[in-house]
């Protein structure tokens, strides 16, 4: 019964997430009903943990039940009141547009339904393993759960250097944003004890959120069955599935990365200018929250995303899909929402001398050729069981459909995947970070973080490639 605390613990973050989303959508809702709830959970958790972080930093609350609950109640009530006030001026929302659902053949429906059942069985199995086995993976007991337990026991934002003693074999963990550990602290606080299974249970929420977001993103352009197959494809990636059902934070990060791009893609695909701005505002919120997920988000994903966002706004402006005022407004939203989280977080890091890298600081690297990296990368990407056939198929379809892949709107997905993957190569080939590729640690996790984007891109390109064939058969 202790697991009922999971939905209970998500209640206020979800409501506050929903109010923020509604406020950003304004009078022009763009999300599908369930998609809005999924994003509410994802955004709500990260936002609440950020507010709690700020409140603790300002000395307003400790990390105990009163403090954490207080932050959530005040935030939710505040957002609710603002939303109620704004709602008075907004007319009834128009339902978000989705692609018409073509009637599919019976065998296709049967196969997709069987795959859904298989996936549900795997997710249940993964959840049982997640909450029912002792802590196992390194980063879980050194970082994510360790810090959650620390916050729970000390009731404050502990940056204990003692735990990072070289003798203790750990390092750098204090430099990570605290969303994941603080969410665990919040659940433990509700339970009144550090409960391993409850602390881990949150990870399945992020995994399911990733699957649902891929489904809803694809649903904007294709039928239910195709979108379901896309969500299945993501869940079937063995390493992504394993991360989704383990107390690691890469799937959590991948949901935020995907949300930024999915919403930006929505803006580029959208035909209504007001709805386009709604998408852009929501994407700005996702980009801001992304900062408070993992260090990689700040140093690796955000710079690439900012480039893509600027490219997209320029494209929309040049193609006269948005005017000068709209472009200015969208840019301002990105600046404000990213800045609101980025500035305090970076100041906090500087103030406490926390590094910006993942396993190693990125500011202290010597350049020299690293042997064996190319082989390690090739083996992990193509010859192991991590990704099924994702990357060879993606490379193939990017080549076959290169014109479509490298044009708006799909270019934001293809450019993101290529820039993130290829952009890391110099670090692996020429710096000491090569160990992350040679040991298949950081490199594989980098692919986990972009997996939802890669699957969505694959599905969009395959669908558009086969669409003429399907249309002819209608």
């Amino acid at each position, binding site marked *: 019964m202790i697991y009922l605390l999971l939905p209970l613990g998500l209640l206020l973050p979800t409501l506050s997430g929903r109010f923020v989303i509604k406020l950003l959508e304004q009078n022009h809702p763009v999300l599908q009903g369930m998609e809005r709830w999924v994003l509410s959970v994802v955004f709500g958790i990260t936002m609440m943990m950020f507010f709690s972080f700020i409140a603790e930093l300002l000395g307003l609350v400790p990390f105990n039940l009163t403090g954490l609950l207080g932050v959530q109640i005040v935030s939710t009530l505040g957002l609710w009141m603002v939303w109620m006030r704004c709602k008075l001026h907004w007319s009834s929302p128009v339902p978000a547009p989705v692609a018409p659902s073509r009637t599919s053949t019976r065998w296709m429906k049967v196969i997709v339904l069987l795959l859904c059942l298989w996936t549900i069985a795997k997710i249940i199995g993964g959840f049982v393993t997640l909450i*029912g086995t002792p802590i196992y993976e390194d980063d879980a007991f050194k970082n994510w759960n360790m810090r959650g*337990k620390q916050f729970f026991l000390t009731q404050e934002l502990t940056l204990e250097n003692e735990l990072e003693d070289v*003798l203790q074999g750990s390092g750098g963990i204090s430099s990570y944003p605290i969303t994941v550990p603080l969410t665990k602290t919040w659940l433990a606080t509700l339970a009144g004890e550090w409960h391993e299974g409850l602390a881990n249970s949150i990870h399945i929420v992020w995994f399911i959120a990733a699957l649902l977001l891929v489904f809803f993103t694809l649903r904007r352009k294709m039928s239910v069955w195709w979108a379901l197959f896309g969500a299945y494809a993501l869940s079937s990636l063995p390493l992504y599935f394993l991360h989704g059902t383990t107390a690691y934070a890469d799937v959590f990060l991948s949901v935020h990365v995907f949300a930024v791009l999915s919403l930006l893609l929505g803006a580029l695909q959208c035909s209504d200018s007001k709805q386009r701005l709604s998408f852009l505002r929501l994407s700005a919120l996702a980009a801001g929250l992304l900062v408070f997920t993992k260090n990689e988000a700040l140093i690796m994903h955000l710079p690439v995303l900012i480039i893509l966002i600027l490219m997209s706004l320029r494209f929309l402006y040049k193609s006269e899909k948005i005017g000068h005022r709209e472009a200015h407004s969208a840019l301002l939203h990105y600046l404000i929402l990213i800045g609101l989280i980025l500035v305090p977080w970076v100041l906090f890091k500087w103030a406490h001398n926390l590094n910006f890298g993942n396993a190693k600081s990125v500011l202290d690297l010597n350049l020299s050729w690293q042997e064996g990296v190319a082989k390690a990368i090739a083996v992990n990407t193509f010859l192991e069981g991590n990704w099924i056939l994702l990357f060879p198929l993606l490379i193939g379809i990017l080549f076959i459909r290169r014109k479509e892949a490298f044009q708006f709107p799909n270019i934001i997905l293809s450019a993101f995947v290529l820039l993130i993957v290829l952009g890391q190569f110099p670090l692996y080939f020429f710096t000491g970070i090569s160990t992350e590729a040679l040991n298949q640690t950081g490199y594989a996790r980098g692919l986990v973080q972009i997996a939802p984007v890669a699957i969505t891109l694959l599905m969009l390109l395959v669908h558009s490639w086969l669409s003429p064939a399907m249309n002819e058969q209608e």
Partner: protein
Amino acid sequence: MYTTSVPIRDFLSVGLLTLLLVPCSASAKTTTEWSFANETLQEGWEASGNPSLAARREGLLITTNAETIFGRAIDLSHPIEVIAIGYKSDDLIEGWLYWHEPQNAPDDLTRLPLFFSPTKGIGTINIDMMKYDTWEGRADFVGIGLPKNSKVLIEDLALTSWSASEKLSEAIKSFWTFDVRKPSSINFLWGPHIAFNPLTREQMFRVTPPNAQSANWYFYLALALVTLWAFLRIRKHPDLRKKILTVVMVIVAGLWIFYDIRMGSEFFDYMKRDYRTYWSRPIGERTFRERSYFNDFATSVTPLVEDQEKYIFIATHRWPFLGLMRYYTYPNIPVDPLQAEETDTWIVYRRPDFTIDARGRLTSDGIAFSSPGKVLHEFEKGTFVFRVQ
């Protein structure tokens, strides 16, 4: 409404192409074996380096005074795919496997390192010769190289090859042979691998990287064949493009789902193991993967250090046990024995070399590490909590 009508002939064409990959000849597994057990002295075996050879009931005991090659000329009618050596040794011996390929000059022996690990009874080394690119399956001499001052008992030596049908059967079995969940699984999963003989199949996930071929190569081959077929068909019949693309899509989706079923089954196999060794067993009997009973041990000793800000922790390995102890007992911190002056409580995990001497001190190899004290709780020999009095 659109309906997809895929001609069965198209599937058959692709299927036939795939069938071409399957070896169709069949003959039996062939083994040539020399057994030295029961004081048997096999003819044709010679030794350089003048070792002492003693025929025993368990096999031939070889004791060397200088570097030695113990081998023989062979003329087999079958290829050699695996060389199996049954042996017994008290110490680790870093030897070699020697062979001579017929096309090479008479003195041009090839060798590869061979480690004889210490054994309790008779152990076996299986050497999969097929994994060496230069190996062509034939040799006219095989031998075992031993360093100076070594002693090993050889029970038998067998040279084996398998028939095409057996290889196919083993390849299918190896595809469905699962790895176990390890700490490294969070970074990579080996995925399906293909071995062509049972010895390699049994060992393939016990070594890093697996000593078998990634099955992904076969998936890529299938993809390449499908692409080639589609390309040729579309060139010949441009009007059938839609049907051909549909066939391609169905086959690719089928390969993906097949791969997923393989990897999903591996995941359920992890669960099955966890159920068998952990979930279904009572505390005290259950073990968790390669960590054995450490998690239950750590949980149960936590109350014993609750009054200690720091305590000393000693285990077989620093990783992962130190980090796990820190996690389990936080805010009570495990420290290194070098910091012994700071605390009076010791937690020892699986270190039978640590004992309590007659004066009640914690000792290892005759060196006292603490003042006299007492064991608060002992789980098994070498696993206990000790506190200085």
